[in-house]
Structure formats: C-alpha cells, structure tokens
C-alpha cells in the first residue's frame, strides 16, 4: 500500500522521470527555497572553514597565515604515525567505540520497548521523565559521584568492609575500566536516548495493536511485528550516525573519569591531544593532521555503514 512518501517514490518517480528535468525542478521549487537558509549556514560555518585542513600539510607561520604558510608535505602525518602513544590512542578509540556500539547502542532501544509495555500512562510518563535526569548533569559532576561511590574510601567499599570483604579499586583496574565506561555512560545517557525511540513508537496507531491482539497475537509477537518495525528506521539512521562518529569515542566522559593507571586502556585520540596541548603545546599542524585523519576515517565509515544499512532497511541517510 503506497501511502507514505517513501513508498510513493516508486510510483511517483516513475511518473516523474518521464518529465524533463526542468519541469521537475519547478515542481519542487518551494523545497529548494526552503533549503536556502540551511545551505548558506553550512557554507559559512562548515565548508568555508574547511580550507584550514591544508594546515595539516603546512608549517604554520603566524605572520603568513594558513594560506601562505610554506608547504611541509606529509611531515606531520609521519610525525603522528610514528608516535606510539598516538597509535595506542587510535587503537583505544576504535576498541571503545566498538564497545559502545555493542553495549550502549541497544540499551535505549530495549528500554524504550520495555517502557512502552507499561500499561499505566502516568507511570510511563514518570519513568520516561525520570530516566532522562542524569543526562542533565555534566560529566564533571557525574564522575565525582561515581568516584564517591567507587573510590577506596567510597560507599561501595564501606558496604563491602561492613560485610567482611576485601576492598576493591574499580576505578584503577585496567581490566574492567572500559566496562565501567560503558556502564556509567548507559546510566547517564540511556534514558535520554529513549526519547527518540519513544517518539517513533508514539506514532504507531493503536488500531494496529488492537487488530493484532484480536487475532490472538502474544506480547512478544506484538513487539516484533508492530513495535520494532516502527523504530527500525530510526535505529538504522542512528546506527549509521553512531558508526560514523567512531573516531570520537566519548571525550567528555573519559577525560573526567580516567586516571594515569588506566591510560593504556582508555586514552583515546581526543584525550591524548588534550593532554599534549596542555603540557607541551601541540603545534597547529599536528592537531590539524590528526583532525583530518579522524575526519577521513569517519567519512569512510559513514559511507560504508550507510551502504550496509540501506541494504538491510531499504533506506539509509542517503
């Protein structure tokens, strides 16, 4: 039943492609009009500054500015790729981001589905509101609370010693630190993440549930055949966007939670740059080179994941 714009395309486009290009453009004239402010915005604030990327290939000279500084070829890329700490941070970035996709990405979805199963409206609203609270606190504050709980003098250890056990030092244990990152990030952000999924679920017509129930569908079948398809497309889009930002890794959280003992498992590219900037003052060309490297990888990941998701879901971002 072709009743959405998405489905419409197959028939409409078939109709339209018969028309000459100019006529199609005229047909959509208002849409182009609507896009003008956004395009201007992107050109000014996103595309124009991109000329700065060439700094990665230049020796920056303050007096000459970015455009007229002398060329340096691949010098800065050689520098960073020979920097073992950078390479380590690169590896950590990949590992942690993949970990987040595995252990954090599905959580808001599951949570949204579970919330949706709650019958009482007021409880549902209450839960959904309350779950978003931790999102409003910054990582500076949340990591302080986590520290109060997990530190040697913290609440957890107090409880453990009262029960007769041995103290644990979770914050400084490289073996579990990444897991701690995933857990605490879920604590802070999963609730917020449910919003978009619940918004998608809100669009499901109740009649569908009714009809299915009358036909004898059980709860889990309802979830699979009605709830899930509604959020499938949002999930696909968010997955693409998440994969496309793998190189970011969660700077804010890690910066506030990590400590020197766990650097080797949690230092990501951004935290590495941050430390270098503060202590030795990393030069502009190096940081631009790293930024460029990150961007290129992000773009590759973006296109790849878009391609894959489109194959599965029949739609991607583009």
């Amino acid at each position, binding site marked *: 039943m072709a009743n959405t714009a998405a489905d419409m395309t197959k028939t409409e486009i078939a109709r339209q492609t018969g028309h000459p290009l100019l006529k199609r453009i005229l047909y959509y004239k208002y*849409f*182009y009009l609507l896009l003008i402010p956004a395009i201007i915005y992107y050109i*000014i604030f996103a595309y124009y*500054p991109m000329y700065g990327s060439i700094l990665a290939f230049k020796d920056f000279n303050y007096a000459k500015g970015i455009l007229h500084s002398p060329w340096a070829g691949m010098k800065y890329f050689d520098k960073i790729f020979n920097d073992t700490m950078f390479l380590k941070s690169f590896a950590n970035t990949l590992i942690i981001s993949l970990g987040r996709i595995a252990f954090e990405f599905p959580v808001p979805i599951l949570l949204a589905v579970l919330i949706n199963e709650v019958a009482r409206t007021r409880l549902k*609203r209450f839960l959904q509101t309350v779950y978003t609270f931790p999102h*409003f606190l910054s990582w500076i504050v949340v990591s302080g609370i986590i520290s109060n709980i997990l530190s040697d003098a913290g609440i957890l250890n107090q409880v453990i010693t009262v029960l007769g056990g041995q103290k644990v030092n979770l914050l400084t244990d490289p073996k579990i630190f990444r897991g701690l990152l995933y857990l605490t990030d879920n604590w802070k952000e999963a609730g917020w993440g449910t919003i978009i999924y619940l918004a998608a679920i809100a669009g499901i017509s109740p009649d569908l549930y009714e009809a299915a129930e009358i036909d004898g569908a059980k709860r889990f079948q309802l979830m699979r055949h009605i709830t899930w398809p509604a959020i499938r497309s949002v999930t696909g889009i968010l997955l693409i966007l998440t994969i496309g930002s793998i190189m970011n890794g969660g700077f804010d959280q890690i*910066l506030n939670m990590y400590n020197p003992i766990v650097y080797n498992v949690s230092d990501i590219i951004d935290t590495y740059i941050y430390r270098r900037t503060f202590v030795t003052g990393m030069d502009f060309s190096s940081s631009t080179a790293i930024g460029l490297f990150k961007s290129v990888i992000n773009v590759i990941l973006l296109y790849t994941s878009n391609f894959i998701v489109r194959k599965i879901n029949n739609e991607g971002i583009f």
Partner: protein
Amino acid sequence: MVNAKRTKRKRIELFDIINVLFLCMLAFISIFPFYYVLIISVAKFEDVSKQLIYLFPTSIDLSAYKVVLSGDNILSAFMVSLFVTAAGAAFNMLLTIMAAYGLSKKGMPGRNALLTFVVFTMFFNAGLIPYYLTVKGIGLINSIFVMIIPLGINTFYLIIMKNFFTALPHSLEESAKIDGANDIYILYKIIIPTSAPIIATITLFYSVDRWNEWWHAMLFITDKEKFPLQMVLREILFDFSQTLGNSMGASIRASRINIYPRSIQMAIVVVTAVPILLVYPFLQKHFTKGIMLGSIKE
C-alpha cells in the same frame, strides 16, 4: 508515548510485574545522582566528613545557595542562558524544519547531492583556527549571538526530522494540493501540526543543547556579563588537578585558583540544572498529544 487503548488489556502478566519492578529500580538509580547532589548542596562540611556514607541529610544548611545566588555573575548568566536557549532553539527549529522538509522528497532532483552536502559536515572538522577566523570574520566575537548563529543546525537532528517527514503519508499533502495549496503553506498548516511528537522532541533536544552551551562562550566571549550559566558552573567546578598535577608550577597555580567547597559546587549544579528540568515536563505533554498518522512498513 501513550497508546491509550492498550490499557484495555486487563490481564496482568508476570512479565508486567517484573517489568515494572525492574523499571522502578532503574528509576531509583536515575534519580540518585540528583538526590546526592541535592543533599551535598545543603550539607555542612563537618557532617559529610564525619559520616562514612552520607546518604541522609542530618541538617539542612542553605548557606551555599545564599553564596551562589548572590554572586554577581549569576543573575546575568541566568538571563543570558535564558535568552540563548529561547532564541537559539527558535532559530534552530526554524532552520531545521525548513531544511528537513526541503530534503524530505525522494523525487526531488539533486536531493542526494544535497544530502551528502549536509551530512558530510558532520564528520569533517577543519580545526579550531579557521573556525575562529570565520566567526571573527562574521563579527560575532564577544557577541551573545555567537552562541546561536554558528550553531544554527545540528545535522543529526536534521536527519532524524527529515526521516520523519519522509515517512508521512502522502495523502496529507495530496488533498491540500488538490485544493491549491503550495508546499510552504502545506508545511506550515499541515505537516508541522501533524508532526507534533518529533517537533517537540527536537525542540527539547535543541533547548537542552543551547542551555548547556559553554564552549563557544569560552572561546569567543570576553565580557563576563555575556557568560552563560554553564560557564560560571565550569569555572566553579573546574578540576585543575588533571592539568596541574604534573607540572612544576603546580603549587603556584594551585594557590591562585579559588577552590570552592563541595556544597557550593553542588549548589551551582542544582541552580544550573533546575530551570531546564522544569521546562522538560511541559514539553513532554506535547509528546503525548501528538496523533501521528504514519503507518508501519511491513
């Protein structure tokens, strides 16, 4: 969020009980950080340090709030944040709704190119200096609007909204078009009202983002009357031990920085978070009001 008719099912299964218990436990965990922040903000230093685990307030001391609320920056910072959030979110939504609808028609020539144009910006970051120079060139240095204009569109949100628009039933527009309406009228009178849940959602996202903004302020604003609340918060919460601990100047730097007692730090966290928390439930009402008529792809 509400499927009102579902409450028709009267049988409560075991699943429901476990589900609700589990979810309530999660609710407790979610409230806990705020609870903790709150009790520390009204706690006396001696009380907190005497007890090994400070979970229940032994006395309420509001002096931290007196200090915070009488600080000379707080009122102006609050007004700045308020303005930036309201004007910023409005600006964001204007740009985003227009662009999202503009990109929502699959038949439109050049759409893929435009989409690429838009999405590419999410992943390509050219660095601090050129961005700074661009903003400077526009004349936004030290202006409140630097927290609004350069942040005009969040591409992530744009894509989400675009997808929602694309999924709307074609019938909505078709009937209006037959009556002679043009696309802009359709957007304004039909699309937007029907998309209430997504509009409310994205408005919320943008509002929270604008309320939390500090980075642009830090980089571009030097007049302290134009600082948003989050800047004031960061100044108070900034933990320098990360950057100081390993340098020879540690002791000197440490003596220069004012280290605020925990109660004041927590008080300012509360003051910064409460306004946005008050707004949120109001927006939530609109989530539930929306009657979206999208149907589901099989």
